[in-house]
Structures are given as C-alpha cells and as structure tokens.
C-alpha cells in the first residue's frame, strides 16, 4: 500500500521550516521524505501545509490496567494517546496487582500487542508491592521486558533499600525513575508552601520535601553508578542539583 502525503510542513531537523515536503509511505513505513516526490500507483493526500511531527513519547502514564479498569484500560488509554499524537507511552507500576513480577509484565505486553494502537512500555517496581520494604524481582522483570524501574508515586524512605536497588539494577543497566517526595514534610499539603498558601489558608508543601530527596538520590546514584531519572522536578533547587550532577536526568 503506497501513500504520499504532499505539502507537509516539517519542523524537526534536518528539515527546513521554510519549505514544504512530501512523505512517501510504503507498507506502513516511511520510505522517503523529499520535495516533490512522485511514485506510481501511490495514493496522494494533500496536507496543504499542515505540520507533521514525529510521534511523542510520554514517560509517565497510568495505564490503570490491571486493577482500575473502571477509570481507564489499555485500549482507552492507547486511543487517547494516539489522539494526542503520542505513539509511545510507558506504564507506571501502580496497577493492581502491582507490576513487581513477570506475570503482570507479560500480561500488559501481550494485551498491548493485541489491543493498543500505540507502543506501551511497562516499568517494573523497585520494591515489592511498591511498599518500600523488600526489593522486587527486578531481574525477572527485566527478562520479561520492562524498560525501567520505578515505584510510581511512592517514595522509598529507606536509604539502605534505595541504595541496594541502585546497586542491583547495575546488573541490568536499567534506568531508575524516582518520585522524590519526603511525605513526612509534604504531609497533607495541597499547593506550594508560601505566601499564597498562607493567604488562602491552605496547607502547603515545602520545597525541601522534594529537594532533600533529590539530593539523597543524586548522591546515591553518583556513588553506586546507577542511571537516575528524577520524575516531575518542580523546584528551582532541584533543577540546580540535577544540572550540577553527573549522569542524572530529569523531567
């Protein structure tokens, strides 16, 4: 099946925003991109200068299946993602049961192949049940196909466990996605602590709730050599620490 999308605006390098390009698709794959392409027997679609972008990747999605299908499931989440232009999404391990063993990993991967129209990549949990007490079967999950490990929105309080997770993960070279929040500090906060919160009479979350744990995880990663990714950084202090650290990335 051959198709040519004509008059596309491409804004990613190496293409120029000033020109319009044609994209030739054959057998479901992009075969050529250039100006004024002509191929015999190809169906032509004129995009009239609309923008064509590479598929987006969302690295922090809650798939909700298994366990919370009343909210969302693999097929609905993939349709939403596709509608928004996201061709690859990852799956946080906060399902029920938690993704802490190969069975859940295999379930998600096979169901996604059958029902999802986008790529779904599962994360494995760092601790059993995301409870932060015992290390999860990371090796088994790595072989089943997880692309990274994470405890979702949970934070591992025990530095000893976090350190062991980082050391253990070096066997498989898996990135570690961490949610940095010291709940003993953020408590029941609903917004940033500060003047506005005080005016409104709302409980605030102080920046140290995030920054202390960012500092801890960066230090542990530097010492253990783990591949650290800090999820949803939200303070200037955190950004500064990530920038100064070696080999740590964030979002």
């Amino acid at each position, binding site marked *: 099946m051959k198709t040519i999308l004509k008059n596309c605006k491409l804004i990613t390098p190496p293409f120029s925003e000033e020109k319009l390009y044609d994209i030739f698709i054959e057998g479901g794959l992009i075969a050529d991109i250039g100006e004024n392409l002509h191929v015999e027997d190809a169906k032509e679609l004129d995009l009239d200068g609309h923008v064509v972008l590479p598929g987006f990747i969302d690295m922090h999605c809650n798939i909700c299946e298994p366990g919370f299908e009343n909210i969302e499931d693999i097929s609905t989440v993939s349709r939403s993602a596709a509608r928004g232009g996201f061709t690859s999404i990852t799956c946080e391990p906060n399902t029920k049961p938690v993704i802490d063993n190969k069975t859940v990993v295999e379930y998600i991967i096979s169901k996604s192949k059958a029902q999802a129209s986008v790529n779904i990549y599962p994360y494995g949990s760092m601790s*059993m049940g995301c409870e932060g*007490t*015992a*290390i*999860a*079967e*990371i*090796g*088994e999950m790595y*072989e089943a196909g997880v692309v990274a490990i994470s405890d979702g929105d949970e934070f591992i309080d*025990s530095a*000893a*466990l976090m350190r*062991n997770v980082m*050391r*253990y993960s*070096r*066997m498989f070279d898996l990135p570690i996605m961490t949610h940095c929040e010291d709940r003993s500090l953020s408590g029941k906060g609903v917004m940033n602590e500060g003047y506005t919160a005080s005016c409104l009479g709302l409980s605030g979350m102080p920046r140290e709730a995030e920054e202390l744990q960012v500092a801890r995880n960066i230090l542990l990663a530097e010492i253990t050599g783990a591949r650290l990714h800090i999820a949803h950084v939200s303070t200037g202090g955190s950004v500064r620490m990530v920038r100064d650290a070696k080999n740590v990335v964030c979002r």
Partner: protein
Amino acid sequence: MALHRKDFFGLRDLTADDIRYILSTAETMKYILNQKNKKAPHLQGKSVIILFYEQSARAKLSYELAAQHLSANVVDMTNSAHSMERESLQDMGQLVDQMGADFIILRHPMAGAARLLAECVEASVINAGDGYNENPGQSLLDLLTIKERKGSFEGLKVAIIGDLLHSRVAKSNIWGLTKLGAEVCVSGPPTFLLPGIEKFGVQVHYDVREAVNQADVILTTRMRMEAQDKTFLPSLDEYKRFFRIDHNLLRYAKEDAIVMHPGPIQRGIEISDGVIDSPQCIINDQIANSVAVRMAMFYILSQMGGALA
C-alpha cells in the same frame, strides 16, 4: 621451613610459602588417613577444646576427627552454650587455658574473635570461622583440592561466584589464591559484592558469564536468605536465574573446569542438580580433604608455638 606462630587466624597473615607448606603437610597427613589404623602419635598427651558459638556439623566433625586421629584428647564445649553466653570470651579462654588445654578451636559470630582470644591465652587458637572475616580451615582444604586436580596455582583462572559480602570462605580463598599467583574473577548480585573488592587484586564482573569465561575452577558460596536480606536480594529464585552454575553456564568455562562448594549445598539454587551429580563437581573431594588439612594445622602449630614449645 616452618611457620613460627602460635595460632591460625586466616590466610591474610600467611605468606605464599606458608600456604604451600601447610598444603604439603596435609598431603602427608593423607597417608595416615589411607591406612587401616588411622592413628598417629603427633598430638599424644595434648588436649583440644572445641568452642563453637555458632552451629556447625561438618567443621566440628572434621576438627574432632583430625584431633582424634593424632591421638589428642578432645573436649567439645559447645553444649555448655548456656554458660558460654554468660561469660566473656576472655574469661572462657582463661578457664580453658588454666585447665591446661593446648588447642582451642573457636567459631564465633564476630570478626576478630579468634585473635582476641589468642592474645589472652597461652593455648594455640585455631579460627574455625569468625563473623564475616575468614575461615582458614575451609579455604585451605579448597586450595588442597584445587592443587590435587590442577597441579599449580600460577596463572590458574578461578571464578568465585555468589555472596561475597557474607562469605568468610570466599575471603580466605581470595587472600590465598591471589598470593599463590592465581587469576581471580568474582561475580554475584551487586548488592553482595564486597566494597573495595578491586583492591583485593581480583576482577569484578556484573555478568557471571564473563567471570566464568575460560575458568579452570569455579568456587561457589552458600546463599542463605535471612529475613533482613529482603533489601539485598528479591528471592533465591532470582539468584538461581542469573548465577546458578548449570550446564549452560559451564559452556563458557574450560572443558575440564571443576566446580566446588563449601557446603551445605542448596541443590538447584547455587548449583544445578545436573552439575552436582556430574564428575565436574568435586564436593566429595573437598570433604575428603577436610580432615587431612585440619590434621596439618594441628601438627604445624604443635611444632612451633603456644604452650607446647
């Protein structure tokens, strides 16, 4: 040549020559064991006290038998564990010493216990295992077994696989093998690797296949899962998946590679059933050497030091 020492703490204090001397003495002791009447007078009139603060079947048996074969009087104090807990190690040592003991065999959960005891008694102290530190008896019998099978240590490729953090036998073996000129590679779950292990003169590999590549000897360690280990290793299943010595893994080693384990072994976890029952796994040879090596240790100490000189 002889070792001028009163006690045996471990292989860290021994030189390569010391170790070779002990091994050749052990080989001579094997002659005694091969006779119908396994009795020799070397320790006649001497007494050996066994003081084990930790459970053990094989080590205790081999020390007892070794002492009996050499005609010593043996007293096992392990049943007085109750009183052992109430008295300090030094006091226990004084008690035993004043009653005229010549040898004390100590197994204790704290590193350095044997050295502490030796400093306050005149008897010769043999360390049968102290905490996570060393176990010279087991290590020497491993070395003897390797020597019998492979001839020499120079350039021999040895892989040590498993829990290095908690294995005192592995530590003693690392000291001994590196001194004797072997090339040592280690591998295990990263949470069980000894911090600073590169300074021991060994190569560390995260991938067990690299450690075992072209190995002549594969030494394994006991994998025990205690409650507090839940943060170190998810399960023994996970250990088995990545580090178990089975026929697939042995394809990377030399064809005549030997596989060893200090025991007791968990079948199917540290080594697969197939390999345990194959001629490459020489655990029985190790056990056979365990008494001879301890006899050598007794004999050498009796020649040199302590209350006996």
